[in-house]
């Protein structure tokens, strides 16, 4: 799948997308032609289409060397920067939740939403290869959710998130959770424009996961150890797990909780609140500095 728009073998769909064509957003960045429908609608879901990138070889000439020094993920990063600017403009606090499948992300989300939805706008982008099951679970809490099916894709990319964002109205000052595809490998490489990555690890997994999947734990600001209510029945060594996580990321914060029993949930809600405020404060400081700079010019 193309890191830019999910074209090629990826079969991505975003719920609620109405267009079949590729024309509703600018693709002037593409130099390859799209002789296929890239976005396909199925009910409330949207598929990013498929079909390989085609380019044709024309004339032949002398071969020569070209130095280009270009980052391969530059396009994803460009989209991520656009997303980030968009989030900032709305003071929208965005978290990219990453974990293995079955770590309890969706349950954690529904429990979190139930605790904060009365005082804060909340929305969710759900990434899965197939089905809208998770988005349905989120919608039961009453907050808007958009399901993005990545098809064969193993991660969400910034372009998909940009599309999904178009589906929401008025999230100003709120919190957007992006539940990435359950995968501890690929999502680490793709910036979505989020404020933070949050890695969720359940105690039913091995405590050495941070060492087995170091890139993910390195990229995350916060590790949530979920399902701690099950600890009495397991041989999971919490201290060791935290130690392993700090080996790959000395700065990582850790919150132990159980979305089912509610233990530790208040610490997590507090973290959300503090960091959301912190983000807005940073923005205020930035704008104030800019304003002072301009005032000095009058």
């Amino acid at each position, binding site marked *: 799948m193309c890191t830019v728009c999910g074209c090629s073998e990826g079969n991505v769909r975003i719920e609620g997308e109405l267009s079949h064509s590729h024309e509703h957003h600018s693709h002037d960045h593409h*130099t390859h032609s799209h002789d296929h429908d890239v976005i396909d609608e199925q009910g409330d879901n949207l598929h990013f289409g498929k079909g*390989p990138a085609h380019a044709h*070889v024309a004339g*032949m000439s002398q071969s020569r060397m070209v130095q280009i020094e270009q980052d391969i993920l530059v396009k994803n990063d460009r989209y991520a920067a656009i997303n980030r600017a968009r989030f900032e403009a709305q003071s929208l606090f965005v978290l990219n939740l990453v974990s293995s499948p079955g770590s309890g992300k969706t349950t954690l989300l529904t429990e979190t939403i139930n605790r904060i939805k009365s005082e804060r706008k909340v929305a969710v982008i759900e990434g899965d290869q197939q089905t809208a099951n998770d988005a349905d679970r989120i919608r039961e809490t009453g907050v808007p959710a958009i399901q993005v099916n990545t098809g064969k894709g*193993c991660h969400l990319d910034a372009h998909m998130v940009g599309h999904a964002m178009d589906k929401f109205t008025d999230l100003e000052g709120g919190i957007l959770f992006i539940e990435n595809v359950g995968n501890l490998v*690929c999502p680490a*490489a*793709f910036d979505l424009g989020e404020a933070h990555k949050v890695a969720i690890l359940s105690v039913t997994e091995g405590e050495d996961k941070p060492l087995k999947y170091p890139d993910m734990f390195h990229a995350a600001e916060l590790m949530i150890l979920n399902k701690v209510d099950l600890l009495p029945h397991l041989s999971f060594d919490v201290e060791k797990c935290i130690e392993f996580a700090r*080996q790959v990321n000395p700065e990582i914060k850790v919150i132990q909780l159980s979305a089912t029993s509610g233990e530790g949930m208040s610490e997590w809600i507090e973290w959300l609140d503090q960091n959301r405020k912190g983000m807005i404060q940073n923005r205020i400081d930035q704008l104030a500095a800019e304003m002072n700079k301009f005032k000095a010019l009058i």
Partner: protein
Amino acid sequence: MHEMSIAEGIIQVLEEQATEQSYQKVKTVWLEIGPLAMIETEALSFCFEAVTRDTLAERATLHIINTTGEAFCMQCLKNVPISQRYDSCPECGSHQLQVVAGDEMRIKELEVE
């Protein structure tokens, strides 16, 4: 798994550059990949061959230049070599390391015509 996306990304860069630098065919690609770039180079070579079919880089040779990883050790206050995210400082054993190099993944050079 995401090596396929990365290979697609390479093709896009090549196509973009084809217009800018006016070439029609790519014969060789030199990639610089660090040990911390989350790339399995064998998988990438395999994907590269698959995605270049019917593109301007069909049958192009892919050369991967493996760079080395480096981190700043907060105990020793200097840069030390590392090859994994969870490596400790080879001199003092500390894990208080800040990666400074080795996560790059870029196209360095092309042979085109």
